[in-house]
Structures are given as C-alpha cells and as structure tokens.
C-alpha cells in the first residue's frame, strides 16, 4: 500500500513545484502572479491585518449576559444544519475530480484503486479544512475578539467552547466528504443497479429535507415565540434527519453544559460516520476507475473548454449532444442575406442569439432595477441627482455587458483566427465589425429600456435622451478596449494571465471611462442640459473606439495563436 503511494506523492509534489516554477518563467506570467498577489493582499489579507481598521471589530460592545445553554444548543445545531445544506445536496453529485491524465496514465498502472481513493479523500479533506483554516488564520483576531465578548465573565466556557467548535466543524467537514465518496461510488456506477441506487438516495435525501421542512411550516403557523422556535429545533423530527449536525452540537455543547459523556458520544458518532462511509466507499472501490473514466470521457471536452474559457465551444458541444436547440429568433436571423464584412455582424447576431440570449434574460431584471431606482427618485423629486444616478446606472449596465459578456466573444474570435484571417477583409475592417457586432445587442437592450423609462418619468427626458445618445459611444469604446486587452494577454489557458487580464481590463475601463466622467461631471457642475454634454461624450468615445480599433487591427494583424 505505502509503495503504491510513492508515485502519487511524487506526482503531487512535482506538479506543485513545477507549477510554481512555471508561473515565474515568463514576464507575462510573472506580472500575472504579482498582480494576483497584490489583489489578494489588498482585498482579503489587508482588511484583517494588525493595523487595519477592521482589526478592532468585536472588541467594542461585549455581550454581558451569557446566552442560556437551552438556547445556545438549538443555535449551534441550526448553524451546523444550515452549513450542511449544500453538502447534503452534494451527495447527489459525482465526486471525482479526476484529470484526463489520471485516466490515461494512472489507471492502467498496477497502483491500487484503494490507494488512489485514499489520496483523493485526503485531498478533499484538505480542501474541506482549508476554508475554516483560512478563516482561522485571516480572521483569528476578530474571531477571538468575538469569542471574548461572548464569553465575558465565563472564561472557562470560552477556552473549551472555542476548541470544541473547531473540532465539531472539522468532524462535520470530514463526515460530509466521506459520505460524499460513499454515495458517489454507490450511485455513479455504470451498471444498471446504480439507477436504482440513485433513486433510493434521491428519495432518502428528499425525505430528509422535506419532512423537517413540512414540520417547521406546520409549527410556524401560530404565534411564534422564542421558546416555540427552540422546541421546533430540538424536536427529533429535526435532529434525526440532520444527525451529523446533532452529533456535532453535542460535541460543541459538552464543555458548556459539562455533559462530557454526551460530548464523547457525539465525537464517537462523528468518527463512526466517517469510518462507516469510508468502509462503504472501499467496498465500491472497484468501480472507481470505471466511474471516473465514464464521467471523464463524457465531460473531458466540456472541462477542457471551460478551462480555456471557450463558452461557444461549450454550446457547440451541448448542441452535438442534443442539449441545445434552435430558437425562432436565430432561425429568423439566419434567413437574412448580407454581402461583405456586414456578414460578420450577421454571424455575431446569430452566435449571440444562440449562446448569450439567456444571459441577457437573466441580466434584464437587474437592469430594470438599476433603472427603476433613479426613475422612481426622478418621478418623486425631478431632481438633478436622480438624473446623475440614472446615468451612473446606465454606466454600470454598460460595464456589466462589456466586461462580462464581450470578453468571451473576443476569446472566441481569437481562437477562430485561422478561419477569420483568410476572409477577404483587412485586419482593421475585421476588428471594427467584430467590435460593432458585439456591441449591438447590448446597446439595443439598453436603448429599449431607456426609451421605456421615458414613459415612466417624462420629467427626466433630457437625461434619458442623453443616455440614449451616449450609450453606443461608451459601449463601443469599452468593447474596443476589451479586444485590445484580449490581444495583449491572449493566453487563455494560463490562469494567472487570465486574472491579470481582468485586472488590466478594470484599469483600462477607468482610463477609457475617465473622459466621459469628466465631461458629464463638468456638465453637471455647470448645470448644462444633459443632451448638450451627451454629444461631446459620443464624439470623444467614438474617437477612442476608433483609436483602439486601429491599435487592435495592428495587434490582430500580427496575432499568432501558436505563440
């Protein structure tokens, strides 16, 4: 067994070492790593650092009265129960994460599947423990302060409760990882029995969730009191289905209630769940390779496409599997006839309708909310501030559409360069029509929404009309910028470069958007009619878009996907 583990240790160590070394090999990757480090430092680590303004959180406002154990117990149980929900649902999904290389290289070797499974479980344990560890490391100071506040006057509780909380959480994590492997192997086999097993598991999990839900709903009909809620949570109807949370609660409550026997029983129960699950997983281990391979072969293309950010490729793969159907709009667009480079716009319209229409549908409510707030303010106050808020909402919507949606389309464009470049258009023309093609759907949606807003707030007509005038210019300039950045950092497979590309895009948005902000700011300060300052915004952004398109054209002309 141990001999079998050596190659796996070698693989993990060498892959990690080479991966770290590789990230320092080229200036682009190095910049990406440094950018990512700076990003995480500023956004995650710094807020919890010693000198940060957040570090004092929790030290003010101590809780002077210790919560009674009769209420603390259901509270702890509820926390564990809620934390368990995603893990319960995870029982129904495949738990593998094997790489295609595992299937092609590792599985045909004599390395025992038990060792492979053991490695996989340990890796998932590490991942499961990583989150609480991160919280513990980064949030230790505020967490300690919170615990100190909670247990003011009860130091003996504080010492044990903190430790048992950590142990309880760790055990719960390990329980769910182990149970996940046991059920995954049980229901994911390629034989016909696994279908029956899957339905049994779905029924079991469904009942475990439905019965407590119905119970809670029936109990909450009358008057709700604190004691009533406590009794609901303490009921066996809640405690039995969520037995992992119940056992963990016993562990956590033991030092507070000083019921050590129950605490040890809880700990033994959790250990038993882990051991039993692993035992069940091991009895199914002969199916490990089969399941991973069957899943791997069917999903390898999708995973590789996801890894590369090839959204269009994913849709194409889904279409091949019969999961994507033609819609009426695309059938209608496909009948249009064009000549010359306008065919690029037609191609983009078809692709966007087939691949992005649901993204627009999902975003639509967000845009309506973004519009509704300033419009409502405008109706009530007809103030200039509401107008500025409306323009800000419009800018945010354009940002979402350009940053979020066009990047994928440009990655698609660069990946299909072998097809696009031989077309009889100059690089400049190709780039220009590609940019315009990506802008049109978003501009149409935003213009339609703005036009609709006119009906609700006629008093805001100048600012709404101004937004309609500005929208195409700003959207085209930002979209052209996305293409420039994509051409400058085109390594789709490199995660560090991907992160860095996103950072550069944010920086670029700030630079490209600054003339617009300046013009609008000056216009607002001088109380100029918004329609008047919308025209220079349109002209300036059109010039920026043109300049960026020229730059993109130059970069695109020399772009080589093999480099």
């Amino acid at each position, binding site marked *: 067994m141990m001999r079998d583990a050596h190659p796996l240790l070698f*693989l993990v160590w060498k*892959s990690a070492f080479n991966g770290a070394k590789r990230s320092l090999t080229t200036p682009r990757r190095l910049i990406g790593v440094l950018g990512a480090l700076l990003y995480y430092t500023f956004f995650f680590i710094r807020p919890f650092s010693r000198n940060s303004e957040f570090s004092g959180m929790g030290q003010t406002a101590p809780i002077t009265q210790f919560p009674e154990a009769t209420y603390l117990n259901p509270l702890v149980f509820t926390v564990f129960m809620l934390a368990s929900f995603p893990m319960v649902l995870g029982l129904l999904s495949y738990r593998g994460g094997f790489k295609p290389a595992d299937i*092609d290289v590792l599985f*045909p070797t*004599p390395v025992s599947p038990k060792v492979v499974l053991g490695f996989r479980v340990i890796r998932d344990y590490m991942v499961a423990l990583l989150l609480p560890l991160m919280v513990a490391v980064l949030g230790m100071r505020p967490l300690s302060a919170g615990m100190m506040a909670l247990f003011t006057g009860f130091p003996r509780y504080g010492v044990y409760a903190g430790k048992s909380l950590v142990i309880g959480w760790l055990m719960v994590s390990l329980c769910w990882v182990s149970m996940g492997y046991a059920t995954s192997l049980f229901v994911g086999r*390629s034989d016909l029995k696994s279908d029956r097993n899957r339905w049994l598991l779905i029924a079991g999990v469904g009942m475990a969730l439905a019965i407590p839900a119905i119970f809670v709903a029936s109990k909450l009909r009358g008057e709700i009191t604190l004691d009533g809620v406590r009794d609901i949570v303490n009921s066996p109807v809640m405690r039995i289905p969520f037995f992992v949370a119940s056992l963990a609660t016993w562990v956590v409550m033991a030092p507070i209630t000083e019921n050590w026997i129950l605490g040890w029983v809880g700990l033994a129960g959790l250990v038993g769940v882990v051991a039993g699950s692993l035992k069940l997983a091991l009895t199914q281990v002969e199916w490990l390779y089969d399941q991973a391979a069957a899943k791997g072969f069917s999903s390898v293309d999708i995973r590789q496409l996801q890894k590369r950010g090839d959204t269009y490729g994913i849709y194409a793969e889904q279409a091949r599997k019969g999961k994507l159907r033609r819609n009426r709009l695309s059938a209608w667009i496909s009948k249009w006839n064009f000549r010359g480079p306008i065919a690029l716009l037609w191609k983009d319209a078809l692709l966007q309708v087939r691949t992005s229409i649901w993204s627009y549908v999902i975003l639509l409510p967000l845009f309506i909310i973004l519009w509704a707030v300033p419009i409502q303010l405008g109706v009530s106050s007809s103030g200039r501030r509401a107008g500025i808020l409306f323009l800000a909402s419009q800018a945010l919507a354009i940002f979402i559409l350009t940053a979020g949606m066009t990047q994928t389309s440009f990655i698609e464009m660069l990946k299909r360069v072998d097809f696009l470049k031989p077309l009889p258009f100059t690089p400049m023309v190709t780039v220009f029509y590609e940019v315009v093609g990506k802008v049109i759907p978003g501009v149409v949606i935003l213009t339609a929404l703005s036009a609709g807003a006119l009906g609700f707030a006629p008093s805001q007509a100048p600012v709404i009309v101004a937004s309609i005038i500005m929208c195409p210019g700003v959207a085209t300039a930002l979209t052209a910028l996305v293409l420039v950045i994509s051409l400058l950092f085109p390594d789709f497979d490199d995660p560090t470069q991907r992160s860095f590309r996103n950072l550069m895009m944010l920086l670029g948005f700030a630079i490209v958007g600054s003339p617009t902000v300046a013009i609008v700011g000056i216009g607002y300060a001088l109380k100029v009619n918004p329609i008047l300052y919308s025209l220079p915004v349109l002209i300036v952004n059109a010039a920026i878009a043109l300049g960026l398109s020229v730059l993109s054209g130059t970069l695109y002309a020399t772009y080589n996907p093999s480099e």
Partner: protein
Amino acid sequence: MLQVHRLVKQYKNFRAVDDLTFTIQPGEIVALLGPNGAGKTTAMRCIAGILRPTAGNAAINGFDVVQDQAKAKAGLAFVPEVPSLYELLTVEEHLKFVAMCFNTLPIYEAKVDELFDRYALKEKRHDLVATLSKGMRQKLSVACALIHNANVFLFDEPLIGIDPEGAKELKNEIVRTRNEGASVLISTHLLDTAERLCDRVIILQRGRKVAEGTLEQLRAMSGMQGRSLEDIFLAITHDGPSGPLNVAPQAPPVITVQSVEISPPPGDETE
C-alpha cells in the same frame, strides 16, 4: 498472452461491446478494426482495466484484469488514442512517474536514455509536458509504455499525429516488441498499415465481432481473393438495409476464420 472472453460493456441501454472473445498469443500483432463507434476504444479500455466490464472478462498473462488487477496490469502497456498526460511534469519526470507506478525504477534508469534517443525526446527531457506538441506527446506516451516489462501492448490509434519518422520508428518498435514475444493489439483506421503490420485482424461492428482471421483467411471466407483489406473491411462493415454484405440479414454471424470455420448465430441453422 491476452485472452478476452465474452466481454460485454453496457451503458444503460447501450451495449458498447457485445460478447467479444479473442486471444492474442505471444509474438502476435492483431489489428482491431471497425467503423467509428464500433466499440474498439471501449474494448481496449476494458482490457486496460480502466472500464469495468459488465460481463465476461479479460486476462493478461492469465491474470484477470478485475479480480487480479495489480498482477494483470503489471504486464500491460496501454497507449491511448489522444494521450492526456500530466502537464506539470517534465518529460523525464513523467517517465519516472510511470516507472514508479509499475515499480520498475531500475528499468527506467537503464532504458531512459535509450528511449529519449529513439523518440527524439532528449532535448525535451527537462521541458514540461504542457509545452509538447501533439506528436511529441504521442511519442512520450509510447515511451511510457516501454518503460516497464510489459508483454501485452494495447495501442489505440498509435500513428495519429506522429510525423513520418516517428511513425516509422513506432512501427519498428511494434514489430520489435512482437519479435521479443509480446502480444500486441492495435486499434486503427489505417487499413494499409494494419495490412502490412498485423498478423491477424478482428473487425468489430456495433460492439460485436463480425470477422476474425488472417488477411488470407478473410479473403477466402469473403470470396474476395486478391482484394485489399480495405475492400474486405468495407464489404463486411457496409451498412446497407440488410446489414453487412457478407452475412445473414437478421444478425451478423462471427466469421471465425482463425480456425477456418463459420459459426452461425444461435438458432440459425440456415447459414
């Protein structure tokens, strides 16, 4: 020796491999032919212990790949069609990893330089696999198959993506392993290569074996004397309204030419 006995692989309602039986003796190269979706790759993955057979079994050197997995796989080398390799290992580390899995590090030490020379991998030995071209990956995959004491080789479309020089070297390697007493199974669409390289041919269609034998035996049984393997293959696997050309309309019988006999399907005495 490789023995496959009544192997079945069923996915839900789809039978990818159906009752496949054959044996490859030591010192024999057998081509596994069939149209796309015939079940060649699935059969190979079952034999390699990657997929678990629904029924039947495969044995390598007498060891069952399911019941006695470690011993069976110790004698097996599998080269997949498009090898997925560990991208963050160097070429040398990848070979070493495979040798560690097979517990054959002394063989690795002895053979690694020779393999690097033979497959033009020497200059790439310290490069990450991620940086290799498709052809170089295929060469590395073949090198991995040769880094331990295998005597049963499974090659799934081994010549796809390799340059002419590499292809020639690989063909020589396959013949060399056969001459050293290995049993070799090659799945390929390159019928002329199969004709020149292989001692025997197995033709699959829709998961079932529809023909097996030497080229001469296939010619004799199909009545296509002097014709190429390509002609015979197309005739056997032709999907007309009545199924394969040379077989009964209802169910294709197995033309087991190896022992010069035609075994009709059960219950059908008319053939």
